[in-house]
C-alpha cells in the first residue's frame, strides 16, 4: 500500500513540474540529444527521426568567422513550427539550442555560438505537420572558440 501511494505521488509530481515551468525543458526531456557526438545522432535523439526535408529554412552565418568564440548565426523560416533546433559539427557535442514555439513565435532567431574549428551549422524546424525541415551553412573558422 505504501509503495502504491509513493508511486502515485511521484507521478503527480512529475506531471506538475512542466506545468509550473509552462515550457519544455528539452535538456531534461531529451538528455541524450545534448551529449550526442554527431548532428545526426542529436537530431535522432531529439526528434526520433532523421528524415529531413531540405527546404525553406535559412541559416545565415559569415563564410569565414574570425573568432570561433562568438560566431553570429541567424535562423529564419516561415514554416509553421513546433520547435527549432540548431546543431554544429565543430565541437565535441553537437546540440546548441532548442527553441519551443507558440502562437506568438516568429522563426527569426539570432545568437552567437562557439565553434572549435571550421564546420557546418544545421538548423531543424519541426513543423506543425510533424515533418522535419532543415537548412545548413558551412563556414570556416579562423580562430577556434573552445580553447578558452
Amino acid at each position: 500500500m505504501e509503495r502504491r501511494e509513493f508511486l502515485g505521488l511521484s507521478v503527480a509530481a512529475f506531471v506538475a513540474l512542466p506545468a509550473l515551468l509552462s515550457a519544455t525543458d528539452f535538456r531534461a526531456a531529451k538528455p541524450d540529444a545534448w551529449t550526442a557526438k554527431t548532428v545526426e545522432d542529436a537530431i535522432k535523439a531529439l526528434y526520433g527521426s532523421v528524415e529531413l526535408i531540405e527546404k525553406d529554412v535559412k541559416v545565415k552565418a559569415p563564410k569565414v568567422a574570425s573568432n570561433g568564440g562568438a560566431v553570429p548565426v541567424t535562423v529564419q523560416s516561415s514554416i509553421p513550427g513546433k520547435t527549432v533546433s540548431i546543431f554544429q559539427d565543430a565541437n565535441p557535442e553537437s546540440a546548441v539550442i532548442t527553441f519551443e514555439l507558440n502562437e506568438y513565435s516568429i522563426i527569426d532567431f539570432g545568437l552567437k555560438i562557439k565553434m572549435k574549428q571550421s564546420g557546418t551549422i544545421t538548423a531543424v524546424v519541426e513543423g506543425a505537420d510533424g515533418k522535419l525541415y532543415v537548412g545548413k551553412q558551412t563556414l570556416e573558422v579562423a580562430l577556434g572558440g573552445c580553447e578558452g
Partner: protein
Amino acid sequence: MRIKAKIKGDVVQVKVMAKHDMLTYDQAKKKGTEANFITHISAKVNDKVVYDASTSQFLSKDPLFQFAFKASAAKPGDKLEVTWVDLKGNTETDSKEIK
C-alpha cells in the same frame, strides 16, 4: 542583463545580452573548475511566453539572444521579462519596457 525590445509594425524585435561565462566542459577542465552555462532562457510579456529556449555550453560567453515575436502579444509600455537558469541552478531575471 541588457534588454532591448521595440515594436516595429506587427512584430516586436528583441535583443538580450546575458552576462555569463558559459564555461564548456573542456574549458572548465583546463581551468580546473566546473563547467557552468545557461541551460534555459525564456521571455514573457503579460504572462504570455514569447521566447523559450533550452541551451547548451556552445553559446558564446555573455551570450546574445536575438528574436522577434508577434506584436499581438504586447503593446508599447508593456514589460518584457527575461529569466535564465544555469547548470548550477543560479537564476537571473530582468525586465524592460517595450518601446
